[in-house]
């Protein structure tokens, strides 16, 4: 007979339950610390007015219900007239296209008198429309994507090429080049930003170009190390056999090695992508043309642009971060494997 865990003595189960709930408490506490700032920004981004969520001697307004929902112009008119509905084909200068409707009263009626009522507040989409309309966030998004993907592509190519001879070929100067490469890891990139900046401005005219954001970071010594490690784990016999069959070194690299090091390439790609996507100082130095902004530079700009209007800034942050969170959730395994791979390597 198979003993099921439920048949264990009660005291054991009680003890385990107690222990597990202790761990869950700690995990939830940490989860709250991680998640609360995001939720807070999320709450700010849908507020109709700037009155604070926390109030002295009154319950906090933390439960949202639909209020002024809509898209387009005419929000202010809607507030006065109780609604706004102008199609794009009937729009005039005074009455531009937009649709706004207040769902608030419907829900207020339902909530009235319930214990939940003092905790609720109406939600609006106005802040999102405003930031979407005034700041070209999709454009910044596309810029960031182009720059990051280009950086990934170049890093993968240059690192996977350079790591191969360092791992598998015996040639003159290998040790020298390898120690040269090692030494570069010691220098902080910030040391280089000053001469790089001078070079970028005076020699290459990198300002307001995408290649100016990518080229200085198109390879990475760390990436070469990472891939070298993986090449080394491939048996030499495989290469010898291919050479006897008359394959060229490039052919061996392209057809045999590249498919074999794919997990390492994925790790490198993720590390480079996240670094490049989040890069701030270099793009800040290079970009002054608003159309060329990457997302972090655009966000920093947005903050100055709407300085007083925190709700709109919050909406901008949400638009910028949610896709990245979704992207992470979709590729969670690869992200985490990538990082732990970096430790083991």
């Amino acid at each position, binding site marked *: 007979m198979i003993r099921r865990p439920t048949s264990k003595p009660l005291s054991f189960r009680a003890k385990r339950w107690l222990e*597990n709930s202790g*761990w869950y408490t700690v*995990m939830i506490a*940490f*989860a709250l610390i*991680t998640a609360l*700032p*995001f939720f*807070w*920004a999320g709450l700010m981004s849908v507020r109709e007015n700037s009155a*604070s*969520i*926390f109030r*002295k001697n009154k319950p*906090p307004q933390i439960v949202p219900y639909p209020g002024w929902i809509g898209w387009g112009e005419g929000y202010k008119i809607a507030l006065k007239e109780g609604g706004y509905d102008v199609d794009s084909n009937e729009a005039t200068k005074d009455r531009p296209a937009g649709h706004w409707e207040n769902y608030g009263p419907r829900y207020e009626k339902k909530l009235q008198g319930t214990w939940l009522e003092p905790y609720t507040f109406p939600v609006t989409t106005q802040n999102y429309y405003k930031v979407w309309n005034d700041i070209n966030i999709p454009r910044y998004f596309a810029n960031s994507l182009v720059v990051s993907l280009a950086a990934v592509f170049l890093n993968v*190519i*240059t690192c996977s*090429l*350079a790591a191969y*001879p360092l791992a598998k*070929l*015996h*040639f*003159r*100067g290998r040790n020298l*080049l390898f120690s040269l*490469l090692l030494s*570069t890891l010691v*220098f*902080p990139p*910030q*040391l*280089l*930003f*000053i001469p790089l*900046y001078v070079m970028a401005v005076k020699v290459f005219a990198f300002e307001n170009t995408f290649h100016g954001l990518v080229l200085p970071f198109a*390879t990475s010594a760390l990436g070469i190390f990472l891939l070298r490690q993986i090449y080394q784990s491939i048996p030499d016999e495989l290469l010898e056999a291919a050479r006897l069959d008359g394959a060229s*070194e*490039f052919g061996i690299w392209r057809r045999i090695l590249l498919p074999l090091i794919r997990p390492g390439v994925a790790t490198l790609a993720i590390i480079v992508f*996240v670094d490049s996507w*989040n890069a*701030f100082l270099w793009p800040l*130095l290079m970009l002054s043309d608003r159309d060329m902004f990457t*997302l*972090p530079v655009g*966000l920093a700009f947005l*903050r100055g642009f709407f300085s007083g209007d925190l709700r709109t*800034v919050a909406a901008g942050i949400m638009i*910028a971060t949610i896709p990245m*969170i979704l992207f*992470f*959730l979709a590729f*969670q395994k690869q*992200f*985490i494997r990538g*990082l*732990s*791979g970096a*430790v*083991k390597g």
Partner: protein
Amino acid sequence: MVTSTESVTQNSTARRRGGMSAMERRRTITAYVFLAPAFAILILFLFIPLVQVVYYSFTDYDMLRSPHWVGLENYQNLMHDDLFWTSLKRSFIYLSVTPVLIVLSIALAIIVNRPLRGVNVFRALYYIPVVISAVAIGMIFNFVFAEPAGLINGLLRQLGLIDTPIHFLTDPDYVLPSIMAVTIWRGLGYYMVMFLAGLQAIPEELYEAAAIDGANKLQQHLHITVPQLRPVITFVAVISSISALRAFDEIFILTDGSGGLLDSGVTTMFYLYRQAFRFLNIGYAASIAVVFTIITMIFSLINLRLLEGRADD
């Protein structure tokens, strides 16, 4: 016999003198072709700038006129620049995020290493801040720290714990600790994943043996987990302290690009940024970069020695 040995010796000396066999030559050429793209970029954007920054540090340069040699003047000025020394002190205060990060992220890794139901959800959640840019995080924390209605001040006031708001970003004494808290919050998930990988590499038998010997959970962690994790701890200590010394984005965003009231958030990195790219004192900033790099390297070496030395006993 004698002749054949001689010929072998001759042959090998000839090769040592530079005569490569055709195959050897071809292999070397192939190797350099593979290395060329990466090294072209490294030479252009790393080795040349490295030489340049040292050169600039001996000049007076504002990018308008050509660099003008001043010898050690920048370094002499640096010695008497109070703000530089204060900023250096702040950079080292900033380093105290490292031990906090290590302890917290090991604890977190131990917790999420347990085979609990739904533990993957928590792991993912803790990791999310890593993929968000420091700029967005800085802006979110502007709301968190805001007064009087930010998350923390609002909550504390709601609970009746405070009457006057805490000036997280406007009191010079609180600016740096507040920004450091953001750095810790942001890095926790990142290092947690590293420690998790380290934990999963520890053989289960070690714990079983210790349990048989009567060691409790805490003793097990102290005598098995920590020593086994030592290589990862060393690695994390080095990279997290280097990134703490280089922290910039959070400081820039949370102080509105100003460095904070009375320069209270000015670390050496921020000072370097200001001198170089705000004031265009390229020569002076280069001397800051050189000195700071040397200090960082010495610090990393000591750090490595201490951590690895302790592992020996």
